[in-house]
């Protein structure tokens, strides 16, 4: 009797762990945002966002968080600053040159769990055709069932890059070198 209880418990444990597999979340471009701000003439900030252009996947493995993967890309020509002429300038060869470099991508190389709500992710950010490693602190906002019954999760990160390191040098120092980014991702899996 004791043996059968132990066996049942053991089998139950096996089943439980075998169902905690890696989950792949597809990024929802409508519910995900990439926002940025750049100092303008030392007087104010220019704010902008990439509207509906963020896609990719986030693969999480609760049993082994360090095996998680983040693979995101943004279409650079979805840039929106609320003023068409300014967007023309930013998309032109002066800055992002979106026709030559249409995508901004991020591919993780390592993921470290800090606590249940925070991860440190290091990855390769490719911007304007230049790839450089960045490390970001990612905050877990929450996880739950979406309106369609799918499982959704939201994460957010804030970090700063120097645009000159990515070959975007025009207009320095009148337009700041530091670009402060906020990336908020909502992913879903059925």
């Amino acid at each position, binding site marked *: 009797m004791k043996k059968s209880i132990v066996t049942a418990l053991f089998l139950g444990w096996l089943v439980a762990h075998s169902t905690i597999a890696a989950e792949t979340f597809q990024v929802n471009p409508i519910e995900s945002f990439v926002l940025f701000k750049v100092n303008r003439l030392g007087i104010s900030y220019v704010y902008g966002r990439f509207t509906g252009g963020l896609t990719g996947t986030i693969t999480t493995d609760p049993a082994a968080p360090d095996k998680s993967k983040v693979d995101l890309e943004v279409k650079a020509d979805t840039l929106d600053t609320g003023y068409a*002429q*300014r967007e*023309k300038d930013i998309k*032109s060869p002066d800055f992002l*040159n979106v026709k030559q470099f249409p995508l901004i991508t991020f591919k993780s190389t390592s993921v470290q769990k800090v606590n249940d709500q925070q991860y440190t992710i290091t990855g390769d950010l490719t911007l304007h055709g230049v790839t450089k490693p960045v490390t970001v602190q990612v905050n877990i906002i929450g996880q739950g069932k979406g309106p369609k019954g799918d499982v959704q999760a939201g994460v957010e990160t804030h970090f700063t890059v120097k645009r000159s390191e990515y*070959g975007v040098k025009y207009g320095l120092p009148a337009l700041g070198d530091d670009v402060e980014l906020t990336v908020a991702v909502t992913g879903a899996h059925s």
Partner: protein
Amino acid sequence: MDAFLISKLAFMVAVGVASFAASAALGWLFAKQPERLRVALWWCLAVILALCCAWVNGGWPLPPRESQQWIGYVLLFAALLRSIPVPTAQLISALASATFGLLVTLLPIAQNGWDPVPFGSWFFAGLLSFLLVRMVLHREFETASLRAPLLLVFPLLVTAVLVFFAGSAMLAELAIAGAVAVAAAYFAVRSSVLGRGFVEITLLFHFLLLLNCSIYADLPPWLAWLQWIVPALVILAGRLLRLQKGMTRHWQYAVTIAGLGVAECLVGVLFYWVVKPTVPF
């Protein structure tokens, strides 16, 4: 903002002074050797324009990653080819340098999903229009008249305005720097003929600016093409009028300059009507 504008003005002044001083020095050095002076002038212009490109691009990357970073290399290549004392090289210099310029400008966008058809269309249309305009304009630089640099400088200044409002302040800055360099060189050696090599370098520079802006910024291609052919159209119209009306060369010059002014104004009006530009910042 003041510091930003001052730095841009200082750059233009530096280009003008460097171009004037270098051309004057070459004019003095080769005072009795007009052919060597013409060779030296086109090299001087190619080097100054290449340095301008490096300054505006924030560096001289090797190899260049963006199409506008290739402009300096194309100009130096054209100057080199033109310097080879072999008749065939001289003959094909325009064709070879325009081909090189078109390839390095079109390949980056072709790699991002252009079909062979648009690539081929842009390439051959661009090459043909460059060679035709060069062929028409070349003859106009066999004298040392003021009309010659006006045919080069004024279109560059108008292009700077078009390109600025089409979204690229950087290419506009280059266009103005080019205009300043050409004007300064002319005033330094105005008793001498600028020479075909000098004209070829300037035309190539102008052509690549318009090509870059129409592909990678928001200058409508048909408008860029119109701006490119305006000087040639004006020259052809002037020749036709002279033949028909029996005008003197003096009157032909005046009509050409006036015609250029009117044509460039028309291009500006068309641009305003189509693009409806606003100030970017």
